């Protein structure tokens, strides 16, 4: 357990979600262990006693998340309601409390996966592994970042930006990711062996994480090789893909995709329609923010843009489509593949960016990076105007 606690503490730091030495993680089997000593432990021990869980994470977010979350949680706010797809689907909403006491934390965590303690940090839990707590913490940071910028763009259109909002924006902009001019060189296709395919998928995943083109470590990657689709497994961490890639026959003659990414059907649909071989899917922040930035304030679909946006919207040459995670009636497996045809990438509203390429991941990665850079630039341009 101790090893897992230390692993996820280090991952929080490497993902830029917390500063070194800050994450406090506890894991409970028959006995309780912590990754380090901290004065907060007595309070969190009581939280363990009050909940049926096996792990807890408490940390102050690193900048810019810290300032953004402080701003969103300020005043009398008791709950933050982001509108991005991941939060809608998995987190629902983000409770906020003022006091770092076991009772207030327990009260909120009885119903939700996270609680923000004003000015002090975020507490999340897991029932199976500290990895769950890590994922929930990361989702809170990502959702708040996207909400802050989306709200700012909306408020600026309405001329309602507050001085405090402005102050936080300036601070946040100092900490946003700076993308490289050139993409990295990835393994070149065509690949000669299954081992090469596994290595190419793992390499593409690692580079996507390294370039911060995902929400911490999560997204999905696939490559068609012959009549088999090699796709990352659900909940796999893109920087640790070794052993987490499922080979799935294109003809459906084996059910190995049962553990594949939630977007397996979308990947299959894209490959069948486009004839391409490689797919990268990340959650780059500014692509998500810009997908949610719509001027149609009085649109009848407001509030359900993620599933039924009626507009044909683009950022530059890149289309934006509605669609929920997975295969439901509003699933992006229905909306995404047709849009991918003849486009270098597609952004799914409030969710993330998909790119494709032939043979290997080089072109897909180049497009993933350049589209996110384009969205970041567009966003900054809009912010400058205000």
């Amino acid at each position: 357990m101790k090893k897992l606690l230390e692993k996820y503490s280090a991952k929080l730091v490497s993902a830029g979600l917390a500063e070194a030495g800050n994450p406090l993680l506890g894991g409970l089997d028959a006995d309780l262990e912590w990754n380090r000593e901290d004065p907060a432990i007595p309070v969190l021990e009581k939280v363990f006693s009050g909940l049926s869980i096996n792990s807890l994470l408490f940390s102050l977010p690193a900048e810019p998340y810290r300032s953004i979350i402080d701003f969103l949680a300020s005043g009398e706010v008791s709950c933050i309601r982001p509108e991005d797809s991941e939060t809608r689907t998995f987190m629902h909403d983000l409770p906020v409390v003022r006091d770092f006491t076991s009772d207030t934390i327990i009260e909120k965590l009885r119903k939700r996966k996270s609680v923000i303690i004003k000015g002090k940090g975020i507490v999340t839990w897991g029932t199976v592994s500290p990895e769950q707590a890590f994922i929930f913490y990361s989702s809170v940071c990502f959702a708040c970042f996207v909400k802050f910028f989306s709200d700012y763009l909306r408020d600026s259109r309405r001329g309602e930006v507050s001085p405090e909002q402005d102050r936080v924006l300036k601070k946040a902009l100092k900490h946003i990711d700076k993308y490289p001019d050139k993409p990295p060189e990835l393994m070149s296709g065509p690949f000669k062996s299954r081992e090469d395919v596994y290595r190419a998928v793992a390499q593409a995943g690692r580079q996507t994480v390294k370039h911060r083109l995902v929400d911490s470590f999560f997204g999905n990657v696939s490559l068609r090789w012959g009549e088999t689709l090699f796709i990352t497994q659900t909940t796999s961490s893109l920087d640790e893909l070794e052993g987490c890639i499922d080979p799935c026959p294109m003809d459906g003659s084996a059910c190995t995709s049962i553990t594949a990414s939630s977007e397996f059907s979308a990947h299959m649909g894209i490959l069948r329609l486009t004839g391409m071989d490689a797919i990268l899917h990340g959650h780059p922040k500014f692509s998500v923010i810009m997908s949610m930035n719509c001027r149609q304030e009085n649109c009848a679909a407001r509030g359900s843009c993620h599933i039924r946006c009626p507009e044909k919207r683009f950022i530059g040459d890149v289309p934006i489509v509605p669609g929920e995670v997975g295969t439901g009636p509003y699933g992006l497996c229905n909306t995404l593949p047709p849009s991918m045809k003849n486009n270098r990438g597609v952004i799914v509203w409030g969710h993330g960016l998909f790119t494709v390429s032939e043979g290997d991941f080089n072109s897909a990665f180049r497009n993933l990076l350049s589209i996110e850079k384009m969205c970041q630039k567009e966003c900054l341009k809009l912010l400058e105007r205000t």
Partner: protein
Amino acid sequence: MTGRWGRILLIDLSSGQYRFERLDPDICRFWIGGKGLAGYYLFPEMTRSWNAPEMPLVFMTGPLTGTLAPASGRICVMSKSPLTGAIGDCSVGGSFGWHMRKAGIDGIVISGKSQRLCGIEISDGSVSVEDAGSLSGAGTDELYGRLKEKGAVACTGPAAEHGVLFSSIMVDGTFAAGRGGLGLVSASKNLKYITVRGTGTVPVHDKEKLRIASEDIRRLVAATPALTGEHGLQNCGTAACYDLISCRRMMPTANFRRTFFGPASAMNSHAFSNAYKPERYGCKACHILCKRIGEDGIHLPEFETMAHFSALIENDDIKAVAAANTICNDAGMDTISAGATLACFSEIRGERLTPDRITGLLLDIAFGQGEGKKLGQGSYLFAESEGCPELSMSVKGMELPGYDPRGAYGMSLGYVTSTRGACHLRAYPISHEILRKPVATDRFSFAGKARIVKIAEDMNAVIDSLTACKFFFFGCSLEEYASAYSAVTGTETSAQDLLAAGERIYFRDRMMNAKCGFTSEDDDLPPRFFSEAGSSGDGIEIPPINRQEFLEARYRYYRVRGLDQEGCPLRSKVLELGLEGLL
């Protein structure tokens, strides 16, 4: 509680009399419904013999049954297990629970013993006990055909009438309350069938809140590949697990002597689809519809049945797998115990079973003929009678299902801590060890597994009380179902409140088993798993389980669960859980 009637139908088959009891709302809140409330009726009688007339056979719905809440149409069937002598409960789908609640009945508690073979017929407010003498020996398929006009049907087949210890109760002809021999309890009461038709409306406290909770659940289900993915349960049924378990090299083969079955790739979901061109069907209130019926009307086997009638008995004929499944369902026998008992027989006798021999032996078991008479007592009593009980791959006398414990250490712990014997569904560690939900854990490690198993048991106990489908929890959590529960009942609750109820319910199972003499000696795996390796390959090592590590994990589980070193409930834990009334 707006959404519950708390109305229980009590039937005494000795007198043929019945009455309705209205439960105190506090009892409904404390025990939730389903498994929780069924145990409320079983607990006082648990030390009796399973065939004592006083022993109740309980059919209990959950607070969500009959509402819009997704996958909530199940019921819990409970009594004392003839196979194990421990608590015996099954969550079963179909339309029985849905009709019960529409008929204004939350639960049915049957006690006594009819002088003649009988059936119980319920139609909204009316209840009657009918003579069923003419149905003696009838198969469940025939019975369902004859009775389905009367509503939902729960019935037993010839296996129960011939004393098979793993007889099942079949609902609507194809949904099985399979494990533990509950069909035999029914037969001991001379009860052949129950029909129920309900046409009323189930009250819901806050319909809008229920709609929102249901949408949240559906959204999460849609985001879960194991459920709605191209090869998830929606598209391939539970057969989807067959390839996965095979390629993880944990497919029980040749009575668990090996963990890899060469012909598996030709026996999978795809092969069955090609052979039978199936369509989907499923339980009331479920949109996944994980069951399959072939174009010729043959119900296709679930994963466990596929695994045990192929790899476990080294049979590579899929027609024989389907035929074995049909015989078991029609005769009313648990396919897992039946397959594992044949595998045990095959190993002890050194006989490779041909397709004809497989179906012949199953029919012999169902009708109490020839060697079938001994095999109908289950693998443990059979192996013991042959002088080699260690060759029964069972825990507490119940046979292991289709996941070799050497391939998933949490599963090995879950098998032994399960209160009804070797059951994969009590803790379902396969969810995280194999299916990666909610996240993946190391399947070859016991680290952290004691608490994970305990929490999962609590969660599944409350799922069986709600009464929802466990498969939905690959994607959802109690967070969403707590909202649905609050919406239906008007009682505000949270995921953690429900987990606390689950802990009470599961701990009470341990209390019942302890009253019947179960101890740590019964929480153990057959010795094979600690001394023999599985079938390593494809870069995956399947060594024997380290016994010391296993025992340490079991001890940690006892500590986390509030049990002493012998696995018996600690008084302090009983008091902490508010169960002092049961002491």
